[in-house]
């Protein structure tokens, strides 16, 4: 019996809709190395709808970061296109914000100055965004550290600064490459709740790469499962758990079912 929650590649999922924000059309990426070509991505079709939280899970080397970099406009695909509101992405866009596994803070800048970096790059007067920056720094719980330097902060606090930095310029789309991968379990959980609360209330569309299946299911409306050699999408799961989600959501039997389904899609690759 076919599982109604499960849409395999080639299924209606590829169809565009007016709600779609990001769409990839048979993206492939081949890296040519001295040892020969490496197919990092093969024929990837995905659609991300407005306001959705979409996670990419898959074992190391299946091309998650490559795909995210292509969507961010930081890396050109070998063939196919990535589109933002129907237009081909050829360079980074200020409508998208990027978050990395590490916070990538500039050590000579205070928390506030780090958060103001994007505004500076955009040529805005720092004073015009200072209020906004303060309120975002407060929202991520770093009110008392606004004048602190990065080396005085823990890893989790540094990642909060990175979150504040990206939220301050109000991107419509947030691209995150294992943003909490380097954090301990407790901090990760707290960050998950915070991220969900902030992005939900601001209606930000999120694309989130992770190794952690629980995290992916907990956060997402859709989980895209990828498998390596060559990197491709092996399935997409709709997560129909109700929102707002709290830690209690994890007790829901449907939550465990979802995790199991992701696992079975990953199949022999884990």
């Amino acid at each position, binding site marked *: 019996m076919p599982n109604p929650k499960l849409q395999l590649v080639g299924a209606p999922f590829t169809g565009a809709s007016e709600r779609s924000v990001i769409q990839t059309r048979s993206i492939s990426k081949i890296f040519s190395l001295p040892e020969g070509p490496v197919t990092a991505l093969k024929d990837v079709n995905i659609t991300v709808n407005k306001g959705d939280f979409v996670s990419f899970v898959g074992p190391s080397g299946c091309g998650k970061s490559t795909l995210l970099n292509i969507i*961010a*406009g*930081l890396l050109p695909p070998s063939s196919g296109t990535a589109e933002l509101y129907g237009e081909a992405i050829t*360079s*980074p*866009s*200020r409508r*998208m*914000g*990027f978050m*990395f596994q*590490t916070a*990538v803070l*500039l*050590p*000579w800048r205070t928390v506030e100055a780090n958060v103001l*970096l*994007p505004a*500076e*790059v*955009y040529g805005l007067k720092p004073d015009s965004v200072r209020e906004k920056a303060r309120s975002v720094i407060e929202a991520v719980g770093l009110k008392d550290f606004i004048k*602190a*330097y990065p*080396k*005085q902060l823990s890893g989790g606090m540094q990642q909060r600064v990175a979150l504040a930095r990206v939220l301050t310029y109000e991107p419509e789309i947030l691209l995150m490459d294992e943003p909490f991968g380097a954090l301990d379990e407790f901090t990760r959980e707290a960050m998950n709740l915070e991220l969900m609360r902030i992005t939900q209330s601001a209606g930000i569309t999120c694309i989130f790469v992770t190794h952690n299946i629980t995290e992916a299911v907990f956060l997402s409306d859709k989980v895209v499962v990828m498998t390596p050699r060559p990197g491709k999408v092996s399935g997409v799961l709709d997560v129909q758990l109700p929102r707002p989600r709290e830690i209690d959501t994890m007790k829901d039997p449907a939550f465990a079912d979802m995790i199991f389904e992701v696992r079975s899609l990953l199949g022999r690759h884990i």
Partner: protein
Amino acid sequence: MKHPDQWTDTAKQRRHDWYFRLGTIGIGVVILALWELLPLLGLVNPIILPPFTKVAEALYTLMQQPFFPGHLAVTFNEIMIGFVVGTLLGLGIGIALAVWPAAKRLTYPFVVGFQAIPKIVFAPLFIAWFGFGQTSKIVMAVVIAFFPVLINTMVGLESVPSDARKLMRSLKATPLQIFWKVSFLHALPIIFAGIQAAFTFAVIGAIVGEFVGAQEGLGYLLNLYNFQLRIDRAFAVIVILAGIGAAGFFILEWMDRKFIFWREDRSH
């Protein structure tokens, strides 16, 4: 404003620092005592190593001599011009090579090859080219001070984390913005270490230049006193040169602490 490093200071740590400072002073006293006593007790020939007090005396009388300020000024000038020009050249060329990869690929073998030459072999040549005056010494100081700045600038600019660049690219930063807001400041601790080395090298360059052929300067005086076997005066000149080197080093060290407060590998 308080230095962020000091926020973590504790009274205990400060006491600890003081013990070490006292220890260092103690070692200094022992060295001076040996310097004084070994020749006095006849364990070392006082002609070879004049006692500390003799050197101090020679230093005092040397500094009273009417000819002394002129020699000091000449060498000081050579060192400072050599240091500043060498630093600016190293910085400029290092930045150019780092931001323009084609230029780096074309010239890197020559940079490495030239760097491998002990630069003082050029000292006699520079005398032949630029004469016995200050120019040949300045050129020597520039050539020898230039390399640590060049190499550290290149290494520093190349060690910028790729994620930091990627962050800037995702913000659509211009190459100039990436350079000034991220790369240059990231490289600055490494560049500054090169600048500190450059000062010491500029002193070496100026003195070696004077050794090879000069009619004025501290290196000339040192050579002269050596030939005259006035070893106490020779030592006095060495003390002055050591003072110049140390002063430069500590001023640069102070600037480093003040301006590069985020340096990670700082011990205190």
